[in-house]
């Protein structure tokens, strides 16, 4: 029996849509277009994040093929651990910082060609085909989330295309999210037993992330800029 592509996609969608999932977990239908009904977000509990752990960074590097050249100043970093210390109280925190997937992203505003764009579901991406490598988005991003590809790349991951002369940043593992999964950093954090990162739809009041956001006060980095980042932090 031969199955047309349309039939195949239809059955995959029906299968995904028909899956019964645990309450609070967003039902995601593979193959459906992204919509603004969903806003993907992430909550980092800095109380659970330890200074010596870089599981999220390693997970991201492995997933997206970001192994560097050893030239620190020009190597790409989609996610990094930032150690924050209050000089007056001496309190310390360690937390991952990556693209904050702003609702009002300055990188999208300043991009001359529109290569920097935000999907309806809030994920901010770079279209590698129309990025001209002007780096204005890097000047505009308040989070230092973007990297410029400074050298020739080989053996890239098929799901995370990169290109010399273009700008890139955390994609929120869009290839995994679109397949119903979670970003690699979140998975790695859980696998390491910290459980400091929660990913989910912040538009869905029943999602785990929304419940946590409702229960505990959270903060956004540089909330004063009014960019409404999709990445939030607890205990900061």
């Amino acid at each position: 029996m031969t199955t047309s592509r349309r039939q195949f996609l239809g059955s995959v969608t029906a299968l995904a849509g028909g899956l019964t999932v645990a309450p609070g977990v967003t039902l995601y239908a593979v193959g459906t277009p992204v919509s603004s009904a969903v806003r993907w977000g992430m909550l980092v509990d800095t109380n659970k994040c330890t200074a010596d752990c870089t599981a999220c960074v390693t997970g991201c590097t492995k997933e997206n093929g970001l192994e560097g050249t050893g030239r620190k100043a020009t190597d790409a970093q989609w996610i990094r651990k930032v150690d924050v210390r209050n000089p007056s109280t001496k309190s310390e925190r360690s937390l991952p910082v990556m693209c904050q997937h702003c609702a009002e992203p300055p990188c999208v505003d300043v991009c001359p060609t529109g290569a920097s764009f935000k999907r309806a579901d809030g994920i901010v991406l770079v279209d590698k085909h129309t990025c001209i490598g002007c780096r204005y988005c890097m000047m505009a991003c308040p989070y230092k989330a973007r990297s410029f590809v400074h050298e020739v790349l080989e053996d890239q991951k098929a799901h995370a295309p990169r290109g010399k002369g273009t700008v890139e940043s955390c994609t929120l593992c869009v290839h995994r999210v679109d397949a119903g999964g979670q970003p690699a950093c979140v998975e790695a954090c859980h696998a390491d037993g910290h459980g400091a990162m929660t990913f989910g739809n912040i538009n869905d009041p029943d999602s785990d992330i929304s419940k946590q956001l409702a229960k505990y006060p959270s903060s956004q980095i540089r909330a004063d800029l009014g960019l409404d980042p999709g990445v939030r932090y607890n205990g900061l």
Partner: protein
Amino acid sequence: MKNMTYRLLTPQKGGFYLVLFMATVVIGLALFSAWYMEHNGHWVTGMNNQIVWGMPHVFAIFLIVAASGALNVASIGTVFGRKAYKPLARLSGVLAVSLLIGGLAVLVLDLGRPDRLIIAMTHMNYSSIFAWNILLYSGFVLIVGVYIWTQMDRLMEGWKGVAGIAAFIWRLVLTTGTGLIFGFLVAREAYDAAVLAPLFIAMSFALGLAVFVLVLSALGEWCDVPISDHLIARMGRLLGIFVVASLYFTVVQHLTGLYAAEHTAVERFVLLDGGVITILFWVGQIAIGSLLPLALIFGSKADLKRGGLMLCAFLVVIGGFAQLYVIIIGGQAFPLVLFPGMEVSSSFYDGAYNTYSPSLPEVGLGVGGFAIAMGIAMVCMRVLRFIPVTLENSGADSEHSKP
């Protein structure tokens, strides 16, 4: 003045082809630099993920800012009716267009993907000041082109006033756009300020006139164009006023920063602790680029002579480079503040003062922008009459005491 005649830049007096050849060699080296950076990737430059805009941008923005300023000489004649400057209007126009093309060439050749220039022209994001600048720069070349046409074609002469006003307004908007490339960067401590727009306009007045003076002096020597002492003195005073204006906005910029507690750290960095940036600010921009030329222009009751004017123009150019280096590199050397009031560190240079060492290809590309500008101007002056035969009587009219 009505019977002003213009001449070609003829190669009879030695050196035309030699200079053109030298410009071509520099352009060749710049193209090689661009190819080298593009082929290897930008890791071979001094730029990195911290200092994302480097020496090519200092050169490019200098040329673009000077381009809009060079047009002022024409505007002073056409829009503000100063007769002394009218014979210089053609030269002012062709120099403005040449400088702009030189600056844009540097900007484009530094792109990560210069081969995608066509995308920049066909995919416009209108919320981007960068995209607006692409329109402003293209429009500038077009409008100044028409303005030059109205000056050179008797049939078009009636449109000269309109074209002159349009070009003047356009250049003000253009420099505002250039300043706002930085002014709109809300996240960077050193930028995020509306004052950058008028500062860039004032800077363009000074840098544009300085470059114009240097080119005019060179042409005067080359083509035996006598330039009256009155015109020299007037241009000197005008340059002085423009330097004062640029200095005024610089003072306002830093006073505003010092007043707001949140900006004192970046001000301290630029004015006190920034190493090369601080030296370039005080020695390059303030002492060499501002105070010294002002002392030379206004310090003596005697009018400025040709050598003195050239020296002042040269100093202003040096100061302009220093100023743009401080703004562009200094603004990125100061770390982004993600957590105000906190001490931060990371593997990605969070909280660190970033350092920058310009590489040879970057400087080569930047200097190539100048060579492109001069090459275009020379070729234009070779084929069309831009150079006034004499400026002997310029500025000797009743308004000679005014700048």
